[in-house]
């Protein structure tokens, strides 16, 4: 299981990469393995604004459908159109080609409340049974 050190994570299994005022987000390796084969991502519209923790959309696999939440408050600037035709990329490369949305960060102070890679990994290990 992969937990890139340069990312931050939420307890609802989203990751975020922040560069200045811009962020990229998706779901973690743990999330994609729990969901199994992903068949669809329901994206927000460009310009949609959501507070931290609110669902911007959802991800669907063959056996489950799950909301995906904003890791930080912000406004959506782009969605990964490639996932419309090849959603399975999320399973294979959740942190790279499987990115889901890009957004501008409205409350950068929220970043300090997120988990770093080590904390998130520990959290995942504790949940596993």
């Amino acid at each position: 299981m992969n937990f890139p050190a340069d990312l931050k994570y939420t307890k609802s299994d989203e990751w975020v990469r922040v560069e200045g005022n811009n962020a990229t987000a998706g779901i973690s390796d743990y999330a994609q393995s729990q969901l199994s084969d992903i068949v669809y991502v329901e994206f927000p519209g460009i310009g949609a604004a959501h507070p931290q923790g609110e669902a911007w959309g959802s991800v669907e696999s063959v056996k489950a459908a799950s909301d995906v939440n904003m890791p930080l408050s912000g406004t959506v600037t782009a969605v990964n159109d490639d996932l419309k035709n090849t959603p399975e990329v999320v399973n294979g490369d959740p942190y790279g080609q499987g990115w889901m949305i890009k957004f501008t960060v409205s409350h950068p102070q929220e970043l300090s409340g997120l988990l770093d890679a080590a904390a998130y990994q520990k959290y995942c290990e504790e949940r596993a049974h």
Partner: protein
Amino acid sequence: MSYYPNTDHDRAEMLKTIGVPNVEALFADVPAQVRFPKLNLPGPLSELETLRELMELANVNAHAQERPLFLGAGAYNHFSPSIVNHLILRGEFLTAYTPYQPEISQGTLQVIYEYQSMICALTGMEVANASHYDGATSMAEAVVMAYHHFREKRRKIILSPAIHPQYRAVVRTYMQGAGVNIVGDDQSQDVAALVKLVDSDTAILIVQSPNFFGQVENLAGVAEQVHAHGALLCVVVDPISLGLLKPPGQFGADIVVGEGQSLGLPLSYGGPYLGFFATRKEYVRKMAGRLVGEAYDKNGQRGFVLTLATREQHIKREKATSNICTNQGLMAIAATVYLSTLGKSGLRQVAELCWHKSHFAAQQIAGVPGFTVDMTKPFFQEFVVKCPRPVNEINRRLLDEWGIIGGYDLGADYPHLKRHMLVCVTEMNNRDEIEMLVEALGEITK
């Protein structure tokens, strides 16, 4: 699969295993005075006596098979070819349960797939579900779908007042507590006026055509105007009318729903009926209900399965957008048999007969002193008649003195339409019946 009931020996063994002397002892926790209460019921009857009693009760009813019927208003007397019953009463269809296990349900799944395909062809839409309880449910589910499509951010639902009153009531029941505003049907207004109500808070506009009054609505340009505000358009339609009229899909509708009872199902005192629901592929993941899809097995052979199951409540659970987890399997099969039997040309013939007979009847009734027929808009198989006396009075005399079942009293649902009767004429009404109705109306109101 065989079914073996428990034998006395099986029961004795089970009771011994759990340490209970007899079956009655299992009810020991129920207070003695209510355990086997004395019920004030008549004694048992033999099959012969039961049949006689039920037939006596049934014979009190005046029904479509023995009386000329001119009543429509959402449930229609159309001809059902005998092959429909012949096929749906086969045990394989009649008793088949939900096809969750595709490996033993290919028959059911294939028929439902064909049903869905036919609904798409009829309505001009891209995808249809495996059916709902009835037309009212389908329309309510269209509202639910629109509500969730906009993630609950658009709260205005616009309903035409010319939609079936019961369908509108069901929508209000469904959307209780959702915090939506259902508007448009509180006053008499036409489609053009309703379209003016569409704004950026509107989730959906629903119109019915032919509407409750039998009139064909002009849908040209409506979809474009609705879409200009980003809202959805739903059209409620009579499937028989689609044998003649341009389907809503070609007018740009996003959702098409309606009652499928006309497709070979009997009137049956109100049910079981058949709600059909069709939409565009882009909305399929928000569509409620069962959906049969075409797939391939590991040997590359075509098969059918229930698909996109992640929409459904048993997977989405509290995040599901609808409570529907069933369909009207047997009724959908009946409709499929009906449509297959009639085919395109047969359906057109039925539609043309309804059109011509209703127009003939309207002209004749318009000639009876005291009666006026609304001819302001084109109509399909129903039309509105203004009567010189209360409708219930006319209907009472039509039934008692002439043995005719008259039309629907519109005053019950539309206060400004007291003394207005909705008359329905289908391919089942022959010329003699129509002329008898005309004569009767004249005699009754002399």
